[in-house]
């Protein structure tokens, strides 16, 4: 990547940010970034700009464009954290995290309800992952997927399972107890 014109004077940061501020606010609004995280995201953007200033041809376009990327990434990462937390919790449970047999059976039954709602392809993937404890490369070999293919399928299936778990309605007896 050829560096941008380095003979010109670098734009003064305060003036640049003042100019671009309404656009950044619009990006924050469009991406519905929580107030408590918006300052951190903006600060990271400005630091990133300072680190890459030599390579940037149009600072305003770069700041706004990069901020859109970062906001999209913010949600993707939050989503991934949640999916990984759920995946990790299921793996812990199946590895014997819950000592009481009754609790373990309840969890397996509730989990099966969620899994039953998934597509056949995801059910096969989940059966091998949680049922037989296979890692992604083993699942890929068993189901005939490529290395990159299995990464995509794994991510889609775990996403779908997360959605199913979050949309579970309480069982009737829970209402009665309440």
């Amino acid at each position, binding site marked *: 990547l050829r560096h941008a014109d380095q003979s010109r004077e670098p734009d003064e940061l305060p003036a640049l940010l*003042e100019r671009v501020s309404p656009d950044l*606010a619009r990006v924050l609004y469009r991406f519905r970034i929580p107030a408590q995280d918006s300052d951190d995201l903006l600060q990271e953007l400005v630091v990133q700009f300072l680190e890459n200033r030599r390579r940037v*041809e149009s600072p305003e376009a770069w700041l706004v*464009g990069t901020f859109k990327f970062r906001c999209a990434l913010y949600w993707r990462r939050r989503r991934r954290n949640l999916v990984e937390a759920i995946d990790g919790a299921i793996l812990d449970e199946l590895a014997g995290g819950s000592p009481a047999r009754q609790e373990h059976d309840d969890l397996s039954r509730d989990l099966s309800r969620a899994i039953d709602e998934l597509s056949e392809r995801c059910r096969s993937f989940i059966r091998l992952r949680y049922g037989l404890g296979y890692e992604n490369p083993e699942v890929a070999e068993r189901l005939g997927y490529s290395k990159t293919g299995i990464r995509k399928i794994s991510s889609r299936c775990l996403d779908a399972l997360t959605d199913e778990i979050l949309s579970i309605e309480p069982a009737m007896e829970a209402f009665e107890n309440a």
Partner: protein
Amino acid sequence: MLEANRDIACTLEGDVLSRFERGEAPPSERSRVLTHLLSGCGSCSDRLRPAASVRKFADPAPSIHRILSRVAEIELRLDAENATADELWRDFQKHPSPRQWTLLNNSARFNSLAFAERLLEAGLDAIYDDPHRALELNQMALVVAVRLDAHQYGRGAAEDLRGRIWARIANSHRASSNLPAADSALATAAELLQAGSGEPLAEAELWYFTASIRRAQRRLDEAMVAIRRSRRIYRLLRDQHLEGRSLLNQAMIHEIQGDLDSAVVCTRKALAQIDPKRDPKLCFAARHAFVWNLMCAGAAEEAQRELDALKPTYLENGDRMVILRMHWLEGRIRRLRGDRATAEASLRQALDGFISAEIPYEAATVALDLSVLFAESGRTHELKPLAAELVEVFQRLGVAREACAALLMFEAAARAEAVTLGFLSQLNDYLGRVRSQPGLVFSPKD
């Protein structure tokens, strides 16, 4: 009614759920939250769902002054780092390569993002003239990058830098005809950039290099998708020059697809966008590509006129590789115009240059152009030494066994004076494909 029941049933503490959502909960808490969610707690599911189904919050106005006060110190530090890197670089580039390695390996003063950037800039500069040196400079940048203290820079900056370096390494391998190594370096780059900050210039460049490598591998559909993605990002960032560079790459893909009209259109657009001050070598490459496309389209007279106009600039500013390509182009234009004697001289200059630069496949392709010229003029006896020379070069440079075997067949046919134009065309096509498929065997049809 249902919501009320759900609230009554919820017994999970808010901070436990927050830790779970951020991926920071310990296993015992994860298990508790999972059991709780599976029991159907609506309020907890609703709280997690914005992260699951994305985008549901109100906006704050950005507070520029607060942010400026927080980054003031970082800005001063980065300015100082840049000034030091400039100073170090001025001294560093005076040394020969082995001494540069010694300096890098023995001193921590080079360990900065700014110095790694200087190495990357020099690496890109060298790619036109000396791809092996470009690779070496990128490898030096990698040595610096892996030693960087990641906490000293912004989130994801170290991954971004390493990802960009691996992408440059991939491109250097491509430029020196090592496509398997290019492919593997590209995969490393993609993985690192995925873990990085999402900086769009780095992503656009990755797509750009992906297109170049897929083009060299003749995976042209993938190359086209990649180059369009890189163009889209450069357009979004309003970097006309780099979008022009992508357009030039797109023109080359069209050319290989045999769509010469689109190639000429893209090259014209690229020429209008590329800034000669920002990258004079790229500008040369674009002008060279334009003449090449005219030649491929059979417009020999126009191509010769354009080349004559360009020639002084080539000789004045062009790097070794660019000048070799100019001789190659000139030889082909002259052959097209029926001027065999001067065509031979130009092709011979290009061939000798590629051999001494150790760029085997380019050397072989030029040699085949020369062979066609000999075959057309009935000088089949001259194919023998040419074929023997090529075999020696391929074996010396350790080119894939199957490609060497194809050249041995060429040598045998030349010795038997049995080389035909059809055979040369098949060998040319084979050499284009074997670069990306090293196990491919040459089996000419009669």
